[in-house]
């Protein structure tokens, strides 16, 4: 019997006091590790340039393959009091560098940014997000940084250093990029790249809203929508912009978050884009290099109240263990975070109320988001970073706050209830990345917040069991992104993308309750079907793609 089964029993017995006691235990301790001195410098100005309130991303990756997760943090830049294109964001100043922190064996971190050759973010780039993937299948994770300006692809040389290969790869994009993610849309074994773009915005078209004397950031509807970008990996270190040919560029929106999964089990990875204050996009992969946007007709565009969510972050995983990937989209307050339940046969229904998010959200703005099994009971919980867009929101609505604590929502067999995070520290939260930082089998969280250091939520752990899987693709892409992995009735879709502007630990973590062993079933993007029986619990395993099913 798991802790939650016990809770259910107590509920039926009316043992309210017991429940309170059991729920009293916090899951995390907020513990800033030694060596991480990064501050997300967004440089807010009285002119309320919209870019100031949107950064920044974080990635959890093992860049040197030493078995310990490292942390990459995207910084923003110095915003001049009066912006004029081209803008110099002073990114050569170390205060505004992106930072790579290598995790040491003693769980401290060392800043290796300069050593790794990552100190040059581009002076005209105001930093936003990060995506991680091994695009050249050489076994070392590469880093793609999105910006307002030009994006940058850093190739991991495998010796602790990176090389800026943006020009050669042809993935600079331009405009205002937000979240990005690597995935293999054509199942050719090479990771392609999807980049969301937020607005058609320039310093010259910037404006402020709000009252005279109390300006605030303008809502996205004040600026024209723009297109997202899909880059196809040619397999030779270069990419081709196929946004138009694939149909991705046919739709304009206010893209912020992106997540991938094969929602209709047709063997091809689909794309969900969280759009801010417009209909959400669900790009169905037609399997022939093209996509059709089907969000509205499949029930994944609007909330259950029929409203267009102010989509920020998104995660595309199965929360109710029915084997189908569902969507959790964070958004602005006064509406709950949106849950699109995958009903099968390619259709979704908005079920934020049925899942309990109506009761526990709606008071805050949500950004980074993850569906991870934090208590290893076999049900994925939700963690959402919060904080309002407007740094002066209290002046306009006294019931809202600029700084807010994250939301931990524990999953009780598909119904979510607020859990004890272990900290109510309010921050202007933005990015969030999920992974097992200390390799103890319990998922940790690192979040970013404007003007502050990142927060490290270290899982206190417990007695329940777990299994963490690293995929190694052979015919499929080496990261195994796009694989569907099932463990003891739970399903995860292999990806590092999701959340907001951030990139997660690519390892697949499963809480398996009291089970001593697990059956593992993998459907690789190549079509290979692989089954492992009786895999011992509480271990990290690497599964290499077999030659045939």
């Amino acid at each position: 019997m798991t802790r939650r089964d016990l809770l259910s029993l107590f509920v039926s017995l009316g043992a309210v006091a017991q429940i309170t006691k059991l729920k009293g235990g916090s899951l995390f301790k907020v513990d800033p590790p030694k060596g991480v001195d990064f501050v997300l410098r967004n440089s807010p100005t009285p002119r309320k340039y919209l870019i100031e309130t949107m950064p920044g991303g974080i990635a959890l990756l093992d860049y040197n393959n030493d078995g310990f997760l490292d942390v990459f943090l995207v910084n923003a830049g110095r915003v001049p009091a009066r912006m004029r294109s081209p803008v110099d964001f002073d990114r050569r100043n170390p205060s505004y560098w992106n930072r790579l922190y290598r995790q040491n064996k003693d769980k401290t971190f060392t800043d290796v940014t300069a050593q790794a050759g990552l100190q040059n973010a581009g002076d005209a780039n105001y930093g936003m997000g990060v995506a991680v993937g091994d695009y050249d299948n050489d076994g070392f994770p590469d880093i793609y940084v999105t910006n307002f300006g030009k994006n940058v692809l850093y190739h991991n040389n495998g010796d602790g250093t990176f090389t800026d290969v943006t020009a050669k790869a042809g993935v600079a994009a331009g405009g205002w990029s937000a979240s990005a993610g690597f995935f293999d849309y054509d199942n050719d074994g090479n990771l392609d790249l999807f980049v969301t773009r937020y607005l058609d915005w320039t310093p010259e078209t910037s404006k402020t809203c709000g009252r005279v004397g109390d300006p605030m950031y303008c809502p996205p509807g004040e600026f024209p929508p723009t297109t997202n970008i899909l880059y196809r990996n040619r397999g030779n270190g270069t990419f081709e912009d196929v946004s138009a040919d694939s149909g991705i560029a046919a739709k304009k929106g206010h893209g912020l978050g992106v997540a991938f999964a094969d929602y209709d089990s047709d063997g091809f990875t689909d794309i969900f884009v969280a759009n801010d204050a417009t209909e959400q996009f669900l790009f169905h992969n037609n399997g022939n290099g093209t996509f059709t946007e089907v969000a509205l007709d499949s029930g994944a565009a609007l909330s259950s109240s029929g409203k267009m969510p102010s989509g920020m972050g998104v995660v595309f995983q199965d929360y109710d263990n029915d084997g189908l990937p569902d969507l959790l989209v964070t958004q602005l307050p006064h509406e709950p975070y949106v849950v699109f339940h995958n009903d099968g046969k390619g259709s979704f229904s908005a079920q934020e109320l049925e899942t309990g998010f109506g009761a526990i959200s709606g008071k805050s703005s949500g950004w980074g988001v993850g569906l991870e099994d934090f208590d290893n009971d076999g049900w994925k919980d939700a963690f959402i970073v919060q904080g309002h867009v407007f740094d002066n929101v209290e002046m306009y609505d006294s019931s809202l706050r600029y700084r807010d604590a994250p939301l931990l929502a524990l999953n009780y067999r598909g119904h979510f209830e607020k859990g004890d995070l272990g900290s109510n520290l309010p921050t202007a939260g933005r990015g969030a990345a999920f992974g097992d930082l200390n390799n103890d089998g319990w998922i940790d969280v690192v979040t970013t917040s404007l003007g502050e250091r990142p927060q490290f939520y270290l899982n206190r752990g417990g007695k329940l069991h777990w299994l963490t899987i690293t995929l190694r693709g052979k015919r499929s892409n080496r990261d195994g992104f796009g694989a569907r992995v099932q463990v003891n009735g739970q399903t995860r879709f292999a990806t590092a993308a999701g959340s907001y502007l951030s990139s997660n630990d690519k390892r697949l973590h499963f809480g398996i309750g009291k089970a001593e062993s697990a059956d593992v079933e993998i459907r690789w993007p190549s079509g290979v079907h692989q089954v492992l029986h009786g895999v011992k619990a509480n271990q990290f395993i690497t599964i290499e793609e077999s030659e045939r099913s």
Partner: protein
Amino acid sequence: MIRALLSVYLFLQMQVAGPRVTPEVSRLLQSGSDAESRNEFDRAIADFRKAADLDPSSTVVLLSLGDAYVKKQDYAAAISPLKRAAELSPDSLPIHQLLGYALLSEGYAAEAIPHLQIAHDSGALGIAQLQADQPAEAIVNLRAALSKNPADPDLLYYLSRAGSALSSQSEDKLLLSFPQNTRAHEVLGQHYYAMKMLPEAVKEYEQALAQRPDLPGLRMELGEIYAARSEWVQAEEQFREETKLQSGNAEAAYRLGDTLLQEGKMTEAAEKLHRSDLLRPDMPETLYSLARATIVSNPASAELALNRVIEIEKQTPLAGQAYLLVAGIHRKQGKTEQAMREMAEYHRIQTLTSRGRE
């Protein structure tokens, strides 16, 4: 309205014009009237002024001059000759009416009132009373005027303003005279709520409830504030108490049901919303929330409720949302074509709504 009504008085001057004027004055009156009929008001005014110089005690001359000024929309200049005309002919209704209009147009509402009372012009009188801070009296006269012209948009506008003004005046009196009274706290709570000062509003309602916990309506209003803050547990508590106080109140049952819906307590939400529908049938919002509460557990019942919403609302945004939910039910049931038809209806209503906004 005033300008339109003034034209009616063109002919009235003839009724009050005395017969004994000199031929020169008569000629000037005629010449002025001719110019006026050609909209040459400056020339008309010049003729009437000459006539007034020649015969300063002629009511018809003074009225003609005042009327010409009014037509020229120079109300300030009209007041003096019309006042003199009223002194000379205190029983003349047209003179008082025209003078009342001129004074009202210049912002002398209080001074206009006695003249409009003499003229028995309830519409203009109501407007003057509203502007003179007499909303209760204004409402009586505006309603009387509306009974004669029920589709007059100006009268409807002023009646609405008078209603608000009376409400404000009563509230001010309540707050000044009984600042610690339950109702005073309630009114303050309403004001804070309107100003989005929700914590302050809650405080006022809590003070009101401390005094009169059983006063119907208070908990419903407080519950709405909590609901606006997405504080559903507190909202539920208040709405639940309200339904105990007013078990036959459909609105209270709806609010409780809708709050339970937000909390994901679908079974009880459906029960309360169903009760609300029984108490006051065919309220579209109730039916829509009822559908949302039952859409997973009982899609057939949800579909019935949504179809009723569509029947009642036809092409409103709520009807569009109902189509969206029905399409979801049918999509889940594999009725793809039906779902597509409903989505087409949804899109059609969306287009209509956005055109309406434009």
